[in-house]
């Protein structure tokens, strides 16, 4: 019964969306407010109705209804309730439903905003939102129905939603259980954040398309969707960072990012989304590069759809391919149609997108931003080429040739370097024209301070030259931002005769956008610090130890104390080692690397023991042990310098974005400098 309700809700939403699309288009053509209003109501309704469907699936998961195929696939009796609920996005069909639900959430939310101005955009915002939603609902109804059930007739077990003739219901006693790798707090939050980020970009895209269709050349669509874009971007960034964290904590190879095809396809919309966020700044302030903003947001939307397709199609070999599927062709059709429609809209309106100004100087803020955008796009092209190259080379030469992490690392490192240089100049550059003399005056002090950024790591023994340059750039960005805040506070203090504290507060408040950008950039360079640390200076060793024996890596020494093997209540067998860690003769504490073996899926999961400080991580993996005699266990040990800054930096980054979206006194961007 609940399955029928759940499926019925999806189906009704699909009918709604199809009606809404028609009503909005007809209403816009005939200028009939009644039809537009009707479509507007549909947009408000999609979220509540989809919630019924998601609620039904959650109920089935929570109450162990294993006759539903999806529940039997991803859940099992022994799982705790919170895992049963998060199994909603543990498999293909459920995650598509979850995706549609989030999308419906964004669509309904945008329907509820104040629509007293710019009503001409409304019908097309509705259409774009509903078309996207309809696409995902079609997948759920016709291809990946999460509510199909097991039946049995004379010929055997059948899988179908409605009862086949002559068949009886089948109730499996237990399900297969959630993939053990997904049973981790990071994995519980990572997919929703990633999906929220993906789904959120529908809003700026729908405003962009509406503005294009209506032949408007102003930047209203950007302003209207700015808050949405920032939130979507924040969720996408958070999703990527959480995924990295999960890999670091669970996958047990001492890394955080493997340039896996799925990681790349999640990174690509982030690259274009980030480029878009920067390009729109120029359009808002200088009314230039309108075409860039549009192309970038269209690319972002396409890459979001492509990313969902890659993550969910099982097309590529990767740690993320938990499923295989037949939804590939329909995704390609939808992508192609979107490309064609967007290209036609862009080309037929190209003339009205002409800029008001031209680029006057490279060192102006718009010049720097454009270089940044080009660098982001360069990384995008490299990523795309890395995915496409194997396919092309097979077509042309008949021989499959692939590229791995070394390719991406070699391309990404110089591009990251370029971005760091831009971040040094960014807080100092102003719009339109910069005087080199002025720039020099602002730069020399932070430059001197940044030299400490070379001295410190050299003193600590970190002396590979690409890393030293990177360390120096990180220090330079930090110093420039720090000096700039002090300088502006001092000016304010002088002119307004305020105390340091009040002056700082006023400065931050008065120009919320520019300071949130500073905070985000500081977050980025702190993350860069962590990446440099682990990429250039990771060391590792391995050994088999008897109890009481020691293993040294760098200045650390670990002692193997004990190992226990026991059954945990949720149907897993745990082998847990106790090792004590010391440095320079001082005992620092105990670590508990372990290996969980899940009976239902027959799969082990390796959980490292990590001692993490701002300076370095000591990361221990339990590789193997001699089960009966307990005479020895094998460990692999990593020393990861500075990696914690990756997580600290991402917190700063997120704080910066939240600060940017924080409702404050809205300053008119055109008057800002």
């Amino acid at each position: 019964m609940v399955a029928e309700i759940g499926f019925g809700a999806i189906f009704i939403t699909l009918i709604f969306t199809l009606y809404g699309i028609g009503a909005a288009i007809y209403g816009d053509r005939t200028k009939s407010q009644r039809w537009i209003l009707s479509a507007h109501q549909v947009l408000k309704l999609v979220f509540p109705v989809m919630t019924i469907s998601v609620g039904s699936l959650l109920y089935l998961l929570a109450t162990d209804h294993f006759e539903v195929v999806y529940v039997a696939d991803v859940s099992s009796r022994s799982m705790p309730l919170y895992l049963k609920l998060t199994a909603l996005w543990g498999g293909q069909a459920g995650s598509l439903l979850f995706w549609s639900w989030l999308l419906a959430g964004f669509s309904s939310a945008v329907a509820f905003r104040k629509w007293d101005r710019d009503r001409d955009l409304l019908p097309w915002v509705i259409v774009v939102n509903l078309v996207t939603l309809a696409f995902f609902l079609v997948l759920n109804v016709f291809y990946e129905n999460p509510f199909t059930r097991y039946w049995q007739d004379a010929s055997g077990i059948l899988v179908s939603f409605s009862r086949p003739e002559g068949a009886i219901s089948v109730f499996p006693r237990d399900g297969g259980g959630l993939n053990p790798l997904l049973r981790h707090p990071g994995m519980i939050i990572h997919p929703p954040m990633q999906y929220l980020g993906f789904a959120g970009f529908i809003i700026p895209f729908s405003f962009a398309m509406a503005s294009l269709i209506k032949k408007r050349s102003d930047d209203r669509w950007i302003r209207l969707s700015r808050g949405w874009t920032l939130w979507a971007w924040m969720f996408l960034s958070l999703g990527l960072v959480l995924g990295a964290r999960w890999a670091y904590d669970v996958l047990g190879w001492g890394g955080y990012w493997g340039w896996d095809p799925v990681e790349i396809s999640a990174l690509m919309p982030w690259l274009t989304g980030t480029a878009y966020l920067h390009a729109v700044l120029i359009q808002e302030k200088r009314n230039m590069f309108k075409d860039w903003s549009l192309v970038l947001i269209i690319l972002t939307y396409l890459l979001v759809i492509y990313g969902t397709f890659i993550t969910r199609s099982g097309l590529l070999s990767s740690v993320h391919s938990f499923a295989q599927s037949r939804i590939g062709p329909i995704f390609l059709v939808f992508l192609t149609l979107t490309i064609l429609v967007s290209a036609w809209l862009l080309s037929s309106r190209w003339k009205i997108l002409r800029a008001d100004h031209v680029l006057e100087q490279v060192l102006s803020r718009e010049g720097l931003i454009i270089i940044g955008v080009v660098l982001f796009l360069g990384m995008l092209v490299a990523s795309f080429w890395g995915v496409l190259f194997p396919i092309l080379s097979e077509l042309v030469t008949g021989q499959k040739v692939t590229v791995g992490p070394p390719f991406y690392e070699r391309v990404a490192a110089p591009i990251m370097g370029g971005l760091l240089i831009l971040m040094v100049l960014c807080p100092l550059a102003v719009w339109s024209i910069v005087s080199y003399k002025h720039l020099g005056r602002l730069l020399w002090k932070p430059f001197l301070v940044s030299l400490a950024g070379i001295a410190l790591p050299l003193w600590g023994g970190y002396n590979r030259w690409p890393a030293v340059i990177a360390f120096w750039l990180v220090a330079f960005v930090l110093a420039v931002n720090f000096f700039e805040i002090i300088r502006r506070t001092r000016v304010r203090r002088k002119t307004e005769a305020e105390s340091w504290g009040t002056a700082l507060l006023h400065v931050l408040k008065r120009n919320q956008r520019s300071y949130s950008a500073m905070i985000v950039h500081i977050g980025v360079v702190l993350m860069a610090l962590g990446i440099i640390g682990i990429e250039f200076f990771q060391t590792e060793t391995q050994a088999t130890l008897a109890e009481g024996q020691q293993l040294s890596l760098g200045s650390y020494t670990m002692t193997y104390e004990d190992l226990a093997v026991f059954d945990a209540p949720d149907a897993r067998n745990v082998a847990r080692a106790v090792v004590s860690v010391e440095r320079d003769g001082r005992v620092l504490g105990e670590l508990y690397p372990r290996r969980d073996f899940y009976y239902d899926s027959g799969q082990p999961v390796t959980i490292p023991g990590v001692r993490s400080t701002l300076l370095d991580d000591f990361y221990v993996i339990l590789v193997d042990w001699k089960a009966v005699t307990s005479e020895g266990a094998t460990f692999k040990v990593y020393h990861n310098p500075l990696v914690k800054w990756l997580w600290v930096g991402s917190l700063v980054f997120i704080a910066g974005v939240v600060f940017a979206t924080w409702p404050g006194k809205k300053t008119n961007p055109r008057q800002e400098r």
Partner: protein
Amino acid sequence: MSEYQEMEPTSRKRTPLKFIVGGLVIVAGIIFLIASSLKSTAQYFLTVDEALAKSQVGELEGRNIRVSGAVLGDSIEYDIDNLELSFTIAQVPADNQLLAEEGGLAQALHNAVTDQNRSHLKVIYHGPIPDLLKDEAQAILTGEMLPSGEFLADEILLKCPTKYEGAVPEQIDLEQE
């Protein structure tokens, strides 16, 4: 360089030549970066058959390549003291159409493991034993062919296609509704 101060007001429609040139230089730099990185890091992606054939004519000497195949469960050996892992993979076709003819990836992997006539390749790897390494898993290995005809892997990617979706649960109770 202080030419900006005397800069003529430019025409409203055209971007000055120097920016176009500058932009092209950046774009060319990125293209060069991608092309040169590609050249030095691209790897052949081969099946077991192809890897054996190519290595016999000496085409793979000193080259980093990728090989895919099906893991033979019985062949997995792990030397705990040296963390040396060895196992054998069997030929699986890479072509999607051939895979479909065999009845999908899971079936193809099963066939590869049970069919005695498939060519085999012994793999050696130094490091922890991967969690997903088991019979009939699809292995994608990065590394190089040794003169001995074995494959020295430095990265192992594993996939077990049947595990989570589509398989009917084993214990099924039949109940009349």
